[in-house]
């Protein structure tokens, strides 16, 4: 007989799930985030920052759309109204749209898509984020102490001599943020050239990388000219150096040349990355190779190059020479071609594919339609004879919002949803997401389609007092804006919710092709335990089906 009594059986404790080390749990301190050089963490830092600026810019829009519900000046004074649309433009363009897809999705994905451990210059990447934040602080300070009322275009001599608002500080803030874009672009170009994994040739790159490369070219070559223009304005305001002062012979059109030399390519900075996301979404959610891959890749470069040659189409009625107007108009028509090539290729990609109507595809479909409409209306404006009537009217406002909101923001949201499981290891709730996508689409069209009509029938932009006959369409537009605003709040809420309560996602919940889906979700800090070797074309869905 054993003297050792048998001990009662102790139930073994539940197996402790030790999460795999990934970039999110590699350090929980604030310092580990604020001093990170991991491209994925920096992408998240950008995500938080630009979301903040988006909602502040949206708040400004809410106020002026409320004012525009009545023809008179009921809610705000004229000066305040001018400050509202200026801040809306400055924040949305420089602090939301230009960083959005490149700094959030580009930072996160480009090293993974090419099989690298990080970007070429990780510390420079962190500095880029800090530059955005510092520029944003300048702009936030300006908003709190009284704003700026020149319009985001800072036309002289109003901005340089006559405006009694904080022009210099805003110009300095945007100057600083410009360096954020320049350094990010520089980082991407060098990374894509020198750090592709073995076998990852140029024509095996995902189209998102091609678009990001083209965008980075514009960032690097265009932004410094804006810096020069803003520097001159800041010197004129701060030191009284007369550069654009009309009493000395200063020329307002010269400022417009310098300003638009950057600001036109800037709109391609805003749309090219969206086109890159669009290529990815269309390919992965129809499980088809992109039709005409090389054409799409080359079209991205063509848009980047041609985009630098058309800036004068913003100046048809400013006093630019007639001859220059004709040259810029012809070039502006030419740039429609590569954009159209892309649209044809996306639609053809879908033909014969296996379509899954998940949220990212809903956004992608919205993009195709809305971007096409916005692009076509750009052709209206590219004709000087039509532009005489439509310049500085709501037609222009509707045109660029169709591209920037109907296009870029939808692509951005589509991309966020598509790569959310990769970034956070959680799926978002599909039904809420589909509902929000549709709500956003409806709200968007109700907001901006009436504005085409308003502009065509003569309502000027940047006016808070308008003729009575425009009220009905303005009310429709403001109603649409409220739906759109609510529509944007939903993803904010459910995406945040999904961080804790979303369904855990595996490495490849979409069963998609691409190197980023070959890593765990969320990925480890170094992305790949061993450098991958690439031996097949991108979007090789035909292979997937065969070996299924």
């Amino acid at each position, binding site marked *: 007989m054993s003297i050792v009594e048998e001990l009662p059986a102790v139930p073994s404790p539940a197996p402790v799930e030790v999460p795999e080390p990934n970039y999110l749990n590699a350090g929980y301190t604030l310092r580990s985030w604020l001093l990170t050089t991991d491209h994925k963490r920096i992408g998240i830092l950008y995500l938080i920052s630009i979301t903040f600026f988006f909602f502040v810019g949206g708040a400004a829009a809410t106020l002026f759309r409320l004012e525009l519900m009545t023809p008179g000046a009921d809610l705000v004074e004229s000066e305040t109204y001018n400050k509202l649309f200026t801040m809306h433009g400055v924040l949305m363009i420089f602090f939301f749209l230009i960083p959005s897809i490149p700094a959030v999705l580009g930072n996160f994905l480009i090293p993974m898509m090419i099989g690298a451990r990080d970007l070429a210059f990780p510390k420079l990447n962190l500095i880029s984020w800090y530059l955005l934040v510092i520029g944003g602080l300048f702009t936030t300070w300006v908003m709190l102490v009284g704003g700026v009322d020149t319009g985001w275009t800072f036309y002289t001599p109003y901005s340089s001599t006559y405006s009694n608002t904080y022009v210099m500080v805003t110009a300095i803030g945007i100057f600083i943020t410009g360096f954020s874009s320049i350094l990010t672009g520089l980082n991407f170009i060098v990374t894509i050239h020198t750090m592709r994994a073995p076998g990852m040739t140029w024509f095996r790159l995902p189209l998102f990388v091609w678009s990001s490369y083209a965008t980075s070219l514009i960032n690097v070559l265009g932004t410094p000219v804006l810096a020069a223009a803003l520097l001159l304005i800041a010197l004129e305001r701060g030191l009284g150096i007369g550069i654009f002062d009309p009493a000395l012979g200063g020329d307002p059109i010269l400022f417009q040349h310098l300003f638009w030399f950057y600001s036109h390519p800037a709109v391609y900075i805003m749309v090219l990355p969206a086109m890159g996301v669009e290529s990815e979404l269309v390919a992965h959610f129809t499980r088809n190779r992109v039709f005409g891959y090389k054409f799409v890749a080359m079209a991205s470069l063509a848009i980047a190059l041609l985009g630098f040659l058309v800036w004068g189409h913003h100046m048809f009625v400013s006093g630019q020479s007639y001859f*220059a107007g004709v040259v810029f108009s012809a070039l502006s028509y030419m740039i429609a071609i590569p954009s159209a090539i892309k649209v044809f290729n996306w639609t053809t990609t879908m033909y014969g594919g296996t379509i899954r109507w998940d949220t990212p595809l809903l956004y992608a479909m919205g993009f195709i339609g809305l971007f096409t409409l916005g692009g076509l209306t750009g052709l209206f404006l590219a004709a000087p004879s039509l532009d005489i009537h439509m310049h500085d009217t709501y037609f222009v406002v509707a045109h660029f919002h169709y591209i920037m909101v109907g296009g870029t923001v939808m692509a951005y949201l589509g991309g966020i949803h598509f790569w959310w499981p990769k970034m956070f290891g959680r799926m978002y709730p599909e039904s809420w997401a589909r509902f929000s996508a549709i709500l956003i689409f409806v709200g968007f069209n109700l907001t901006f389609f009436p504005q085409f009509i308003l502009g065509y029938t003569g309502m000027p932009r940047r006016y808070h007092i308008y003729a009575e006959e425009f009220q009905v369409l303005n009310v429709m537009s403001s109603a649409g804006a409220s739906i759109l605003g609510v529509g944007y709040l939903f993803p904010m809420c459910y995406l945040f919710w999904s961080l804790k309560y979303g369904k855990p996602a595996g490495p490849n919940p979409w069963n998609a092709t691409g190197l980023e889906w070959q890593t765990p979700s969320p990925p480890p800090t170094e992305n790949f335990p061993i450098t991958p070797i690439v031996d097949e074309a991108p979007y090789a869905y035909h292979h997937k089906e065969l070996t299924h």
Partner: protein
Amino acid sequence: MSEHQPHVTVKQYYGVFVALMVLLVVTILLAMVHLGALNTPVAMTVATIKTVLVMTYFMHLRYAARLVWLFAGAGAVWMAMLVGGTLNDYESRGWFTGRLGSVPVGEFQGVGTSEAIQLRSGSMPAAPGALDAAESVHREGRTKD
């Protein structure tokens, strides 16, 4: 640095330096000669020769990858687009008349004053001197930068 990679020698550095100093003297001498409209293009050409020397030898482009040449040239090409596109506007002013034809550069009469506004828009200002008075109020009344 790998032993087999060619690189610029000290002798070449000194040689380029002498050439640059000579070209500096040439620049100054040529500026004093009357060449009319050619003075500016000539000065810019000499400056460009100096630039190419500095970039090729001091900045090691001679032995750098082709891609680096492309990046080195891109800045110059883009600046040419900026200057070219802008001067295209100014130099072609007055080529066409009509509503969109603008006044040729050089025919401005005191830009910004009431006469110039009259010249451009063909309309009379409210009262003689009224525009100037309003203007000075806006200039002096500014309190923020």
